[in-house]
């Protein structure tokens, strides 16, 4: 059943991920989005705040491939630049949340006892506030801005990662190889960093991938209610809010940014799903 193969874990993972066409599609779309966000100023045909009164509510045309908004700003350019805010909200918020969450979860799970008890009770309380409510409230109280939106999103996502990491650490902690490491004098730091975290990360990787998606989603919502990115900086959620008032006459103004949000979230979810299957040890060999 087992063939002796000299392949690194990463290669192995990629080999298994590759079989899932949807996950690869998600990865491609995500890569494309990141590229677009980075190269936005070069790709956008117009500046995102360049107004052109003649082009107010312009329909799709060679000059404005997706049309223009009330102030005559090019929709395509705004969508391209808008990718930046969305991806930043997704990636930075998740990085913050995941690093804090993993640290809390790993410590609580590994040491157990009262460390674990206290952290989990605090998380219980924290999580008894509906997440989106907490997020909107924090964003509102801190004041509307991209930076505060990211903080709010990050703070709200911590418990999820912490709990997952803790659960994952608990499954690794009692394995005999941890005892073996202790028997050869490995210290706590070495055991956690060298043995526990690498073996506990698999579910976290999936959660992080999907978490980027949900932060993009929640971020667009914050902007939609006016608590995220402030005009004139374009952001997909803000653009949907602006397009909302003219839904009847010019539905595309709200339609396209929504599609952008959906595509980026969808690709995160597809990739996450694929990673989950690829990392599942039971499906190996």
């Amino acid at each position: 059943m087992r063939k002796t193969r000299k392949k690194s874990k990463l290669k192995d993972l990629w080999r298994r991920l590759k079989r899932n066409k949807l996950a690869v599609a998600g990865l491609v779309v995500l890569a494309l989005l990141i590229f677009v966000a980075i190269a936005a100023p070069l790709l956008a045909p117009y500046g995102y705040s360049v107004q052109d009164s003649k082009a107010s509510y312009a329909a799709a045309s060679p000059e404005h491939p997706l049309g223009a908004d009330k102030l005559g700003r090019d929709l395509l350019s705004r969508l391209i630049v808008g990718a930046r805010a969305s991806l930043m909200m997704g990636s930075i918020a998740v990085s913050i949340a995941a690093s804090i969450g993993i640290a809390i979860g790993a410590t609580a799970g590994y040491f157990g006892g009262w460390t674990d008890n206290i952290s989990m009770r605090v998380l219980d309380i924290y999580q008894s506030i509906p997440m989106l409510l907490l997020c909107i409230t924090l964003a509102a109280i801190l004041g509307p801005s991209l930076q505060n939106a990211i903080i709010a999103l990050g703070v709200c996502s911590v418990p999820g990662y912490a709990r997952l990491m803790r659960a994952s650490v608990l499954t690794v902690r009692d394995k005999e190889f941890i005892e073996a490491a202790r028997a050869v004098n490995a210290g706590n730091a070495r055991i956690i960093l060298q043995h526990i975290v690498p073996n506990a990360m698999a579910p976290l990787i999936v959660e992080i991938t999907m978490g980027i998606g949900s932060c993009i989603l929640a971020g667009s919502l914050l902007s939609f209610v006016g608590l995220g990115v402030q005009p004139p900086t374009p952001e997909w959620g803000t653009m949907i809010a602006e397009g909302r008032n003219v839904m009847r006459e010019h539905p595309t103004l709200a339609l396209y940014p929504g599609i952008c949000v959906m595509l980026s979230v969808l690709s995160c979810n597809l990739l996450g799903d694929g990673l989950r299957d690829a990392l599942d040890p039971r499906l190996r060999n």
Partner: protein
Amino acid sequence: MEEQGNLLEIRDLAVEYHTDEATIYAVNHIGLTVKKGETIGLVGETGAGKTSIARSILGILPMPPAKIVSGEILYRGNELLRLPEREMRKIRGNKIAMIFQDPMTALNPIETVGFQIAETIRQHDSVSQVEANRRACDMLEMVGIAMGRFGDFPHQFSGGMKQRVVIAMALACNPELLLADEPTTALDVTIQAQVLEMMQSLRERLETSVMLITHDLGVVSEFCDSVAVVYAGEIVERGTVEDIFDRPGHPYTLGLFGSLPRLDATERRLKPIKGRMPDPTNVPEGCRFCDRCPRAEDRCSKSPPAESEIAPGHAVKCFFAPQR
């Protein structure tokens, strides 16, 4: 052509598992008969294909990835592999029942043990719920569990007791053939002794034929009438317990005995079989044991030996088998 007294006859059975990467040749054209009232032991190491044989008989191989590529399984002259699912269901759990290795996971955790036993009875015999429950209680008593525990859940039982429940469930419809897949491997020796003793007496009382799958030669010698030694998906030797224990003919069987630490042993070293089982995705062309065999010659790696009967009922799959 049902031979007199044969309850089950397996002919030329081959099972493969197809995964994305490779094909595993789990069972390789084996033949086997189980006589009425007989207990046959299937001995072999992990991955030898014992479980696949048992599951093929019952038609519960996970398909895909498993695939039965050839063979027939005759139960009282009926070809089980060609039987429609509806008919097969009437046999499963009723005429042929199975006990599994791990009693911890073999029971549904959220149903009472009584329900799980009664369910089998109601599936096969048209009796009322009350009658089924009464019979389930009787079964519990029979395996040495107080019937007051009818309404308890599996997690309230210890491992040995769970295995008793599993046995009660398997015997609930008084099957003709019981497939026992390592029924005591997960248990402690003293509990194993209790469970084996109980199975022994039930077998005698109910006149059930048993196919006992195990890796423990000790269990085989105490429990079985005949033995089939399985190696890498093939039956390399079969015969009565006396044949196998007193006159083993296959080098693998001999190797197994040499590997065993004996309570009566005096020498300080075991005589293990060298090497390890062949990769089931890449099996040798000739005899599957040739890489590890102390007697191997050129011809062994070229073509597989045929099974030869060295005494009535004692067959060995080896070129060196002493001819009758």
